[in-house]
């Protein structure tokens, strides 16, 4: 079985986000970029499977994005991916997520993969569109936000748990399939220095839009949303600090929540 892990490089979650003066994007310079924390679960799950099962042939990492993504790729290769594909082209920058999914679908389709892992959500765009959209592009089933993954002995299906409102859902899915990973599935191991060195020698295949079969048509066929007018989050009105002994402040708070905020 060949496994693919789709990753994205995103600004670190602690980064200060500043908006560009023209409002058309955020300031990109000086931002610390990392592997999306949810994609970390995806690579770890894939590598663990390879370590546990003799029928796993290889783990390939796929990333789309500019040259700086090679840093994220190196981490992923050091954690245990065997090789990688790096899609890099200016034409990719303008795609919305559905169009990215269509593009990745075309790249993956004939690769012989049976299992694709991906984080449940990109922490930059925060949308979580890519996983399910990619599954649809491939016409595969998917499990979203999986917290547990157990392949069947025969390697033809698996069961997975996923978190939903107030409940835990257990599903059975036939391969080939895509799984998006939620916290709780596993924690990514720390890439060791020797492995980071070795990662440098692992093969990375570079691809551009010209290498994607039918790129122009498939991206014209779906999506096309555009992001504009970036802004800081809506300002909250200044808060009020209640002063005094606990006895008074607690009483005052309940009163305010009732009468002013009308929240209780």
């Amino acid at each position, binding site marked *: 079985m060949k496994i693919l892990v789709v990753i994205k490089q995103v600004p670190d*979650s*602690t980064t200060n*986000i500043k*908006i560009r003066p023209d409002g058309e994007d*955020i300031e990109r310079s000086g931002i610390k970029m990392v592997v999306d924390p*949810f994609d970390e679960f995806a690579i770890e799950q894939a590598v663990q499977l390879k370590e546990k099962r003799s029928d796993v042939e290889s783990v390939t990492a796929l990333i789309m994005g500019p040259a700086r993504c090679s840093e994220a790729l190196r981490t992923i290769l050091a954690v245990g991916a065997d090789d990688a594909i790096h899609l890099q082209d200016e034409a990719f920058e303008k795609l*919305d997520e*559905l169009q990215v*999914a*269509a593009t990745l679908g075309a790249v993956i389709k004939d690769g012989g993969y049976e299992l694709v892992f991906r984080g449940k959500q990109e*922490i*930059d765009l*925060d*949308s*979580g*569109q890519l996983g*399910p*959209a990619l*599954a*649809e*592009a491939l*016409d595969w*089933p*998917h*499990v979203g936000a999986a917290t547990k993954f157990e392949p069947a002995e025969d390697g033809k299906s698996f069961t997975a748990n*996923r978190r*939903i*409102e*107030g*409940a*835990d*859902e*257990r*599903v059975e*899915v036939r391969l080939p399939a895509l799984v998006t990973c939620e*916290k709780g599935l596993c924690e990514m191991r720390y890439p060791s220095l020797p492995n980071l060195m070795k990662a440098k020698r692992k093969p990375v295949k570079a691809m551009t839009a010209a290498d994607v079969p039918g790129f122009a048509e498939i991206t014209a066929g*779906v*999506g*096309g*949303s555009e*992001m504009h*007018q*970036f*802004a*800081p*989050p*809506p300002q909250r009105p200044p*808060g*009020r*600090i*209640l002063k005094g002994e*606990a*006895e008074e*402040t607690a*009483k005052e708070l*309940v009163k*305010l*929540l009732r009468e002013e*905020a009308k929240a*209780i």
Partner: protein
Amino acid sequence: MTNDILIFVEQRDDRVHPGALQCVTPGKSLAEKAGGKVVACIVGDNIDGATSAVEQTGVDRIITVSDPALKMYSALRYRTALAAVMEKVEPRVVLMAATFMGRDLSPRVAMRTKAALATDVIELDLTGDGELDIVRPLYNGKATCHVKFPKDRPAIATIRANTFPTPTGGSGAAREDLPYTTLDGDDRINVLEIAKTGGDVKDVTEADIIVSGGRAMKNEDNFKLIFELAKELDAAVGASRAACDAGYQPHSRQVGLTGKTVTPKLYIACGISGAIQHMAGMRGSKIIVAINTDTEAPIFNIADYGIVDDLFKVVPILTEEVLRLKG
């Protein structure tokens, strides 16, 4: 494409998700602007209760797709059902709640129907040329942006809970049933079991009020204080990652970047510092209350009301006060 607005009304066990009914409010104003109708679509099995709940919101038309195979949510089957409804209605805009189901289903449906999609929407409007223009948060709530949709294809938007009020005062929508026609391979996902988590306590994604505890709770036992206040407020119990990692509460209650995103009407943070990753999950709450001993805790920057004091003193009095108010 018509000028109709289609609303996918999420239900489980014949219970409509409150966020789904809230979609009717922006649905009506978009329909009015576009000169179209509001069409609701309910997918499931045995959905009479859900159907009449939708009817009361004053939609113009209801399409049900009911079949035993649709009893439980499956990404493939529900995608097939909703895509069929879209093909029939040819809506300009499709709205659904930004829930686990909405987030899971909308990208598949958008791909299948060649639509465009925006998730977690907090504002939406039709421009003069009939283009949908929406606002959504991104970068874990550290920014927002407008998303413009192309004019020549349907726009799908999932809407954040508690962004819009639930409409009332309707009846008598035209009703029709559409059969569920299986697509090849729809049975590749099967739900084996749905196990409730959290016992009698509401889930953070379902409650109007959340009382959350952080590392300052010190142990699981002390969370009793949080549960007692939550009970009186009919609230859910949440926790920071520090509290979950330390084992005080299960991760299903974690709020934040790697936990759940919540937008309740009231969020009470007890002994939570307000790390950027925690705020990522709760800064969209309507009213935020912070109780923290540290005047400098970042949570006070986004709190509407703050008490700088020991939560072990304040919380029990709050519980008592709420109880008295109700009594």
